[in-house]
């Protein structure tokens, strides 16, 4: 309920402020027109002196000087600080992935020795265990 009254009050305020706002804009429109023509004449005069109306003000020049000096200070600070030359690798090393004792076989000098075959009785070489076959049920389908 309070918000409704607040909005109504705002609306009434805008209603009374609107004509004054229009008058202010109208006055400024005429004033702006006069200033525009003065600036236009000034622009023409400045054109023949090699300047423009939009050239930097003394404050802008001072601002630029301050900004550049601040940048230079920052650069100097960065140069004075000790550089950390360590670069992070994009890829993890083998020790990270496999552990600290791991040495990659690709880059070791050792020649790979063939693994001794496991001998079982009667010198029969070990064969891979056969796959377990699924027995068909009586109806012929898989269980």
């Amino acid at each position: 309920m309070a918000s409704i009254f607040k909005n109504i009050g705002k609306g009434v305020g805008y209603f009374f402020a609107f004509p004054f706002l229009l008058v202010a804009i109208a006055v400024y429109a005429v004033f702006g027109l006069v200033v525009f023509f003065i600036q236009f004449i000034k622009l023409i005069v400045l054109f023949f002196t090699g300047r423009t109306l939009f050239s930097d003000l003394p404050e802008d020049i001072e601002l630029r000087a301050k900004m550049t000096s601040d940048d230079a200070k920052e650069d100097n600070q960065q140069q004075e600080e000790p550089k950390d030359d360590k670069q992070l690798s994009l890829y993890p090393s083998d020790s990270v992935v496999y552990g600290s004792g791991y040495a990659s076989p690709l880059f070791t000098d050792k020649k790979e020795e063939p693994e001794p075959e496991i001998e079982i009785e009667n010198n029969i070489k070990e064969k891979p265990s056969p796959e377990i076959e699924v027995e068909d049920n009586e109806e012929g389908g898989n269980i």
Partner: protein
Amino acid sequence: MLIPTLVTLSENDKRLIFSLLIIVIVILVFIGFLGYLLVRIMKWQSKKMDTLIHDVVVYNVITDRKHLIRYGRSKNWALFFKQAYIPLLIILVGVIVIIVRNIVYNDWSYNPFSTVDGFGTVFWTWKATGEFSGSQYDIIRFQLIALDNTPHLVAEAWAGYVAGPCFLVGGLWYLITVSSLLSRTALLYKRSREVFEKSLDGFHQNEAPKPIEKPKQESSTEEE
């Protein structure tokens, strides 16, 4: 005296009062909405001033109010010149067309918005009849105004067809730039008060902690 008069109002009188009340309320709401819209647009336009004066304040190039107003004003007018030259050029084109037309026809009393030979021929226009029947419902029935013109093209109105839109578009555009200028000016004065404001709210000197003194460096001669 008033109450018996109200009591004796007929049903038609009550309807008339009710309809007039509704019309007044609608007009009030419409004008209030227009004002609200204009204020919102101007607030949005004024933000440009912050961009113009931000750096010089942040980098302590300007450190007092008057200096900020002077700097902001010059920036504001320069921006206004940049924004206003296009709408003013459009208006200038319209003026040139009207001048050429007046020279060609040797008629300097030409109204470019005329409903006879101007831009007004392409609009519906109404005019007051001046006839009042004496009935209190004349306003409601629109009997006081009559249709004056329906849209049609006239060859003699070519200058109005060129100049009229130029004046309308350029004028509206120029008013928008002026409202922008006005809103930026208002924000500049507001910022000039706020930015350099010093406040002692909640500050008590006796309660404030003493500033920490820097330890004195021992001189090398003392060590020896």
